[in-house]
């Protein structure tokens, strides 16, 4: 069987987000081959009429139902009670969405307030997690698949004004400043 087909099976069987590293390990092929297969699968599934889609969150991938069919899916499953986001939660999630993976000092530089409690609260809710980043001394935070899944976007770069806010001219300077202070 082709790599594409095996990848499709694994994402289907997993039922949860899988890291690229994990997929490479299971398929036992080169990373670049896996990345190509993932790109092919996205092309195959991520079109308007598909009932199944592939979502990417930075380094993770998951096969999910098309959010446009959420009503049909809800007829089946008990709809989840996820509740509203408070303003501090929303603000923090927004910055982490556009600038993640991001350290706490960087986040606090942008928001101007201490963020330890709000980060903890979002991590317990499963909307933010520590990114897998063995290089850094400070932990970096990123949003979870759970969050993306709820927004109904396939990829962070589909968020409104992503390019502008992701590569914001002041961010890099501000963050460089934070890092200088920290070092």
């Amino acid at each position, binding site marked *: 069987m082709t790599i594409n087909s095996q990848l499709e099976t694994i994402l289907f069987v997993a039922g949860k987000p899988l890291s690229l590293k994990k997929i490479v390990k299971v398929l036992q092929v080169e990373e670049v081959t896996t990345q190509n297969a993932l790109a092919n699968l996205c092309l195959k599934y991520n079109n308007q009429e598909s009932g199944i889609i592939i979502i990417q969150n930075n380094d993770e991938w998951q096969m999910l139902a098309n959010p446009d069919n959420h009503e049909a899916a809800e007829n089946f499953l008990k709809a989840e009670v996820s509740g509203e986001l408070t303003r501090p939660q929303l603000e923090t999630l*927004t910055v982490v969405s556009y600038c993640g993976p991001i350290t706490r000092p960087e986040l606090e530089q942008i928001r101007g307030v201490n963020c330890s409690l709000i980060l903890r609260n979002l991590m317990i809710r499963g909307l933010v997690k520590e990114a897998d980043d063995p290089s850094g001394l400070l932990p970096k935070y990123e949003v979870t698949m759970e969050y993306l899944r709820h927004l*109904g976007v396939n990829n962070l770069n589909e968020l409104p004004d992503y390019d502008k806010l992701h590569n914001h001219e002041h961010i890099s300077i501000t963050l460089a400043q934070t890092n200088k202070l920290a070092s």
Partner: protein
Amino acid sequence: MNEIKLEKFQGPLDLLLQLIELEKLNITEVSLSQITEQFLNFLDKLENDRSEELADFLVIATKLVYLKSKTLLPYLYPEEDEGPSLADQLKMYQQYILASKKINILWSQNRIAYGRIEPPVKNTEFVLPLNARTGDLLKSMEKLVSRLRPLNPLPKITIDRAVSVKQKIESIWNTLKQHKKLNFTDLIAESENKTDVIVSFLALLELMRDHKAFINQDSAFGNMEVHLI
């Protein structure tokens, strides 16, 4: 100024944004320096109800006072690249606030991508993970317990009611007219708190700008002598 309620803002940057909007100003260094006093006025209100946030507000208050002094006496601050200004920081914050409103719309649509309900996986044979023996559990538990050690509460910072810059200018001006000369140290000797010192300093800068006073200082951090002009 009193139209902004304490519970209506998230942090110092949010307060700044609201003050700017209230005054219908653009975000520039000049307009920020204009609302310094209004901002400082919120500090003592914070102390009663949201003291845990005081540190964050003091950071921004310092930047504002710096801006204010720079606007009053620009010749003391040679042009140099100082990195992103408070105005830049605030503009950036504003953009994320706007973005967060769009994110909230996405979130509230409940257009959720659902996952599969997986059939239960049966684990046929039990394998003890190599790193989950009693010694591993003990080590991991000890690490966790030390991580959970409750943090010492922040030292309580007290900020008492701030005297307005305007009142302070008058008071310094009156003293100066009487004595012709005075030491800044004496001026702030009766200050009850840091805000008071900041306000005195700002008042002094205003007097200098208006050519009512000048200052002699022998060395950096040395005593400042204030003279009547």
